[in-house]
């Protein structure tokens, strides 16, 4: 176990320096990239804090969706790759119980890290996961 401060705290300290002290002293493209850098470090800090719980929840949902044992050791990447293959084959689709709720939760968890201010995310936070998709047209 590392001593405090936590990795997230360290990263947030650097982000604050970039935004509050470096940025006002810069201009043009360098200022723009300093802002992007601060935003990027904030993504890292949020991920450090939320990833363990978010990954565990995603993993549990994937194992259930794919009909695998809860003790399965496959990586998240492998599980996602299998889900993709089965969606592509049509073996799992929007009518498969749990799929839409899983994708909804996984996507919201990603946005909570990547872009918590994104308009589509703010809207989705107030909505229930979709129960079905629009049927094919007339």
């Amino acid at each position, binding site marked *: 176990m590392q001593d405090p401060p936590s990795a997230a705290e360290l990263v947030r300290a650097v982000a604050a320096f970039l935004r509050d002290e470096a940025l006002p002293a810069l201009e043009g493209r360098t200022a723009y990239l300093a802002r*992007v850098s601060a935003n990027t470090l904030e993504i890292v800090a949020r991920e450090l804090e939320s990833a363990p719980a978010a990954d565990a929840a995603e993993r549990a949902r994937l194992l259930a969706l794919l009909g695998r044992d809860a003790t399965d050791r496959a990586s998240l990447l492998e599980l996602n790759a299998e889900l993709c293959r089965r969606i592509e084959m049509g073996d799992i689709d929007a009518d498969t119980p749990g*799929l839409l709720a899983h994708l*909804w939760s996984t996507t919201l968890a*990603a946005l909570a890290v990547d872009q918590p201010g994104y*308009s589509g*995310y703010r809207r989705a936070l107030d909505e229930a996961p979709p129960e079905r998709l*629009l049927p094919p047209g007339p």
Partner: protein
Amino acid sequence: MVDIEALAGIVRDFEPSVEGIEGLRRLTGGASQETWSFDVLRRDAPALGLVLRRTPGGAAAADSRKVSLLDEARLLGLAARAGVPVPEVLAVLPPGGALGDGYLMSRVEGETIPRRILREPRFARARAGLARQCGEILARLHAIPREEVPALRVAPAAIELEDYVRRHRSYGWPKPVFELAVRWLRERAPAGETQPVLVHGDFRSGNLMIDENGVAAVLDWELAHLGDPMEDLGWICVNSWRFGEDHNPVGGFGRREDLFAGYEAAGGMRVDPERVRYWQVLGTLKWGVMCAGMLAVFRSGEDRSVERAAIGRRASEAAIDLLRLMAGRD
């Protein structure tokens, strides 16, 4: 760097009173294409603002989806004659010259930064008419006779979709929402392909130069191709181009009804809103794949900027928009 003497020589052909060139600065550019802005000092006349677009080594565009700069110059000429506001092409660079391949155009004054256009009071009047004006501009663009258009990529919906499916797969990163969207789009391919027309391919906030009166110029023609005219109408409705003003589906500034009314009033085909919505979903998938593609460019070493790296994380915004769109929310 740009060879100033060679540049002055090109300018002198159409502007004999040139006395010097100053303020040369690079606006954008990846490894292969560059855009430069500069001012031409003239005898007895105010300075003239120009823009140079070029591939320094005369190299062909690295991405086969992109229009060559010579074709881009031709398209700007065609668009201008059709009544689409565009910068005026003033010179095409001689092949094999010191500056590479490319062209010079007038520098149109205005604002391209979407957040300013969408929020600053000085653009309030422009914003009010913008959706309709975009419809009118697209109708004029789509009416350009195909026989006048250079031989560009032909990409109706199915080809465009499969092209992006291939690109997505090539990145090797599993994205279940994108897989679901691919199936959704394949099952709903629009019936009765229309005759392919010249489409801009990237008609959205950020690529429109706006002044107090509205659209001053349509920029960034490198993704132009022959396709379904509804593609351009759907693309400008993609949520990422609303820049937070998501209650205004057209670019964050207007209503679909006004976009469609402007399109039909200026001679465009009857708009099928469902077909536009299909293109909006496909456009959202394309944006998500493009974000992932930025990561590939970063990892290849071609562009190691933090900006390029960070855009990879925007694929999740396309994912939530896809889920909401496929469920009929928007």
